[in-house]
């Protein structure tokens, strides 16, 4: 199977140093089960090769690094590359962990390349059956459409082990990117170090002070329904409540 995995650089949540992104390592673990030598593609600066080698340490032979200047629209670069090197399946992490972290890149690629997209995959087996993550312990299994893009869930396991020797031995092919289309994706967004606190949106109150006070006085936090009686009655009432919520047949 012709498989391509997109990898990005993450940021350590405490130290802020660039490192491999765990989400992309999850995508690599899914890819490894399908193919021995998937193609790894990174768009970024050639100066970050040392950090990228962490991905090679997970057991891959080569990375294609397409050069781009900071702030450049990486989707434009990727689309051009993917048109030139078509693949049967494109895997990405659910979202970057150290960039803009919007999770939009796979959606933009799917839209521009006219490919189906499957989100939050946990694993894909050799028959092409994908297991999708759903909350509350639910899972969905379905066939992977042809020529599709799949994002790998943040809940997928981190299976691959890092070996320093492999990180040194792998190769990074630096490819020139196009510098024509340098349009930025996000207009008007400003990034700065995180500050604590937030203002919560609220509708301006037209009530008088007395009304607000009265409301506070009236809503005494007094619990819900209290059932007294024999244990059998209590059990029957709780069971009927659970049946209403369709938790018990």
């Amino acid at each position, binding site marked *: 199977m012709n498989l391509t995995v997109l990898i990005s650089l*993450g*940021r*350590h949540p405490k130290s802020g140093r660039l490192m491999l992104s765990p989400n992309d390592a999850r995508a690599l673990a899914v890819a490894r089960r399908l193919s021995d030598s998937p193609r790894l593609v990174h768009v970024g600066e050639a100066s970050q090769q040392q950090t990228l080698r962490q991905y090679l340490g997970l057991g891959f032979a080569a990375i294609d690094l397409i050069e781009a200047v900071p702030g450049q629209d990486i989707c434009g670069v990727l689309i051009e590359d993917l048109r030139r090197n078509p693949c049967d399946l494109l895997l990405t992490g659910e979202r970057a*962990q*150290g960039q*803009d*972290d919007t*999770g*939009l890149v796979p*959606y*933009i690629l799917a*839209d521009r390349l006219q490919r189906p*997209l499957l*989100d*939050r995959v946990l694993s894909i087996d050799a028959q092409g059956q994908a297991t999708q993550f*759903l909350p*509350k*312990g*639910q*899972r*969905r*299994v*379905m*066939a992977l459409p042809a020529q599709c893009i799949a994002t790998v869930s943040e809940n997928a396991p981190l299976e691959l082990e890092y070996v320093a020797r492999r990180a040194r031995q792998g190769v990074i092919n630096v490819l020139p990117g196009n510098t024509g289309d340098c349009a930025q994706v*996000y207009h008007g*967004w*400003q*990034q700065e*170090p*995180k500050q604590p606190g*937030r*203002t*919560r*949106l*609220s*509708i301006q109150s037209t*009530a008088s002070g007395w*009304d607000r006070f*009265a409301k506070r*006085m*009236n*809503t005494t936090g007094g*619990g*819900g*329904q*209290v*059932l*007294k009686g*024999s*244990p*059998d009655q*209590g*059990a029957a*009432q*709780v*069971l009927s*409540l659970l049946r209403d*919520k369709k*938790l*018990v047949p």
Partner: protein
Amino acid sequence: MSIRRVNRFTQERGFVTAEGIKRVARARDVTGLDQAPAAAAKAKPVRHSENAERNLLVVLHCKAGELSTLDREAIYVARALSEMGSQAQVHTLVFGAPNPNLDWAEFGVDQLHVLADERFEHYVPEAKVQALVHLHGQLEPERVVFVESELGDSDLARRFAIAQGLSFGGDLYEVTDHSVRRLSGNGRYQASGPLPQVLAVQSGTTGDLDLEFVTAPNTVAVQGVDAPVAPEESLFSLPSGDIPLVEADFVISAGNGVANMDTFHRLAQLLDATVAGSRVVVDDGKLPRERQVGATGQIVKASVYLAIGISGAVQHLQGIKDCNTVIAVNSDESCDMIKRADVSVIADAEEWMQAMISALEGTP
């Protein structure tokens, strides 16, 4: 020179109670009758929005007919955005049939669009986008508000915004009248931008959820959308014992009041619920550490939390603040858990569990 003393409380102000004691209420002229602060009980004014100039759209998924707190927050965000500027209507599109007892007037929804076709419960994101684009074209809303949720909302928001070429802001933890804020750089930076056309909000963007008015909502079934062909897929649930506590939907939790853990496990198995416990139980070694609920344990977001013999210490209650329905079983009627619970049973834990077991085994 002398300063004239002004007596702010004249003889006419105030009233005499039945016991003959004179009472003066400041800032308010009260007769003795209206002492009880009954103002909150009066009916809220009804807001009509026939001649609104703008529209706002909220897109939600109804799971088993219920709305989560986050869904309510998204509606509140849209309502608050509609209050800024000229009069606006808040439309809500729900996938799945909502419970008839949901009070959309209280939530501040002007028009409810329901897409209750069962086939939308399958993985048909393209069909959902199509339905949404159709409604979007009809209403031309100023903004579309989504929630960030793994039930398909986050996915739909991104697909829709990209397909329509609209500006998008996701994972928003702050929304104001002109700007939004989100985290980037793996939580180390904040990115702030102008209000986008498509918003996907996290929990905590709003404070209070209560409105001071109600709306007169009307429900319309969405027209002109072809139901999708359900793809071949299978849905399954992990065995309840394997579900991590943070993910679990139905949790049964034991406290110090549970004397017999075997009965407890038997009941959990019959109910097919995920097992948890208070710190005391875990410290006693009756349950593994990853099953502890509370400040130093796990935060559960279950739709039903069944607390058996748990006193409800603050450290424990912190772990269940996101649970929808809490059911408490305790022999002590005055404990804090019963104040938090939506339904409480005053009974001995062992007897009640035995009653549950025989009731469940009695049913075929």
